[in-house]
């Protein structure tokens, strides 16, 4: 309960922000197509929610499937690479450098390769989430302390045991740091990829087409849906983190 209470200040900030927004739109009589008031957006959400729900699910599916492929692949690749620290040292700089590559710029090409439907978006999301997860996991697997390894050695542990009982659990905090960050990347990747082309029943296309027609109320409603889905995604992963690492959860580290 005290945990719930700790969210009260943040909730108050949200409410205050919405009130300021509402007031600013009224006081300065801001045109609705420039910035609709929150209550207008909420009404738009209510009126067009069947369309938004369908579009949201469509886009969210891309994000989650791409995320699963990218993060899953990143973890598996890191596990394989960690077997050879020499190989890891070889590929790690490139994997780190890939963070500065705007993978989203490949979205138009992805459409050429994987079609205008979900395939191309999933590919972009997978590519965007693969490298951060790979780098974090590999760092976690290789970053165990020499003392922790000495202990394993003194206990005559096999390579397999060192991996399962030391490297894997030791890497979890870094793995989950990447997994949490990648939920955001996945939503961005899915929505922005759709700006380059996709079916009407997707959030990205909906936002783009309504905004270009100055139907900003609808655009904002869709953005709100994207935000909510992103938050839910992040929350689900954070919850999984607490369940997988109870020794950290008790410490209140999240």
């Amino acid at each position, binding site marked *: 309960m005290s945990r719930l209470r700790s969210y009260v200040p943040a909730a108050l900030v949200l409410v205050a922000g919405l009130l300021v927004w509402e007031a600013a739109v009224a006081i300065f009589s801001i045109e609705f197509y420039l910035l609709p008031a929150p209550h207008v957006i909420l009404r738009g959400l209510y009126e067009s929610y069947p369309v938004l729900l369908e579009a949201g699910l469509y886009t969210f599916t891309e994000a989650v499937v791409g995320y699963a492929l990218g993060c899953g692949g990143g973890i598996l690749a890191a596990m394989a690479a960690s077997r050879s620290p020499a190989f890891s040292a070889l590929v790690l700089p490139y994997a780190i450098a890939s963070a500065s590559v705007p993978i989203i710029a490949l979205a138009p090409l992805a459409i050429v390769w994987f079609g205008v439907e979900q395939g191309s978006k999933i590919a972009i999301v997978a590519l965007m989430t693969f490298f951060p997860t790979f780098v974090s996991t590999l760092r976690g697997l290789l970053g165990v302390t020499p*003392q922790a390894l000495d202990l394993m050695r003194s206990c*005559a542990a096999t390579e397999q045991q060192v991996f399962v009982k030391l490297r894997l659990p030791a890497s979890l905090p870094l793995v989950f740091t990447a997994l949490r960050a990648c939920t955001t990347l996945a939503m961005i990747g899915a929505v922005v990829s759709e700006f380059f082309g996709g079916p009407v029943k997707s959030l990205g296309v909906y936002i783009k087409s309504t905004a270009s027609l100055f139907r900003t109320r609808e655009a904002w409603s869709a953005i709100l849906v994207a935000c909510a889905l992103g938050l839910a995604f992040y929350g689900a992963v954070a919850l999984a983190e607490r369940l997988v*690492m109870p*020794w950290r959860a008790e410490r209140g580290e999240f």
Partner: protein
Amino acid sequence: MGVDRRTVGGSPGPVAPVIEAAGVGCTFTSRAGVTEALRDVSLTVEAGEFVSIIGPSGCGKSTFLRVVGDLVEPATGRVRVNGKTPREARLHRDYGIVFQSPVLYEWRTALENVRLPLELAGRPRAEWEERPRALLRLVGLEAFRDHYPWQLSGGMQQRVSIARALALHPSILLMDEPFGALDEITRDRLNVELLRIWSESGATVLFVTHSIAEAVFLSSRVVVMTPRPGSIDRVVTIDLPRPRTDHIRAERHFFELVTTVRESLREDPALPGPLPPPGGVDGSRRTRRIG
């Protein structure tokens, strides 16, 4: 009971020593060049002994312990542990080791940390509960078995790591400055506790420290090492009676032995300052008095 090595066994004929090192040399290569960490170190430890190695920081005492434990490969010399090479002894899980830091895995509770060696040795699950519990009882932490390391104090963490080192009934306990990071009050308390654990386990202990009082209080023999390159300067036999309690720290003979060890360390040419005459028996808590 902790027994002096001279009374161990009692059987006639030569009993194979637990640790036998002859002419051990060790060098490390780094960017700064080649460092000779150990030169011609020879030491024999008999079953049931408690032998401490003392010396200033960087004298190679930890390196020697790691050579015995097969964590470092010696460049020269011969080491036998229970009549085997250190590697064979390690693979046979002949020793338990306690490091300066507790090295507890943060994702394991106290009990799970203690049972790690059992899991690694492939012991059946049936043993995973009883033995670790008994060991936690031995170190006085049974009530904390479900606590994670961060919930334990530094002294408690080190006790867990001692319990873990004993998990597989090792014949040798290698301890690398186990109490070096603890405050003196906790250290004194754990010293008494360690002697009790040692006498109950019957293990042979090789103990590295830089505390003179600790070495004298615990040991059957104190090996004094000098640095650069690390070599054995002198071995002081500690003939204080056992069992030893805190009271022994106030006895005259304890001070005399502390002084003897301190003077052995002072004779090290690498250390500055002339020797002041041994000034009474007041210096047990000071590590070095240089005039």
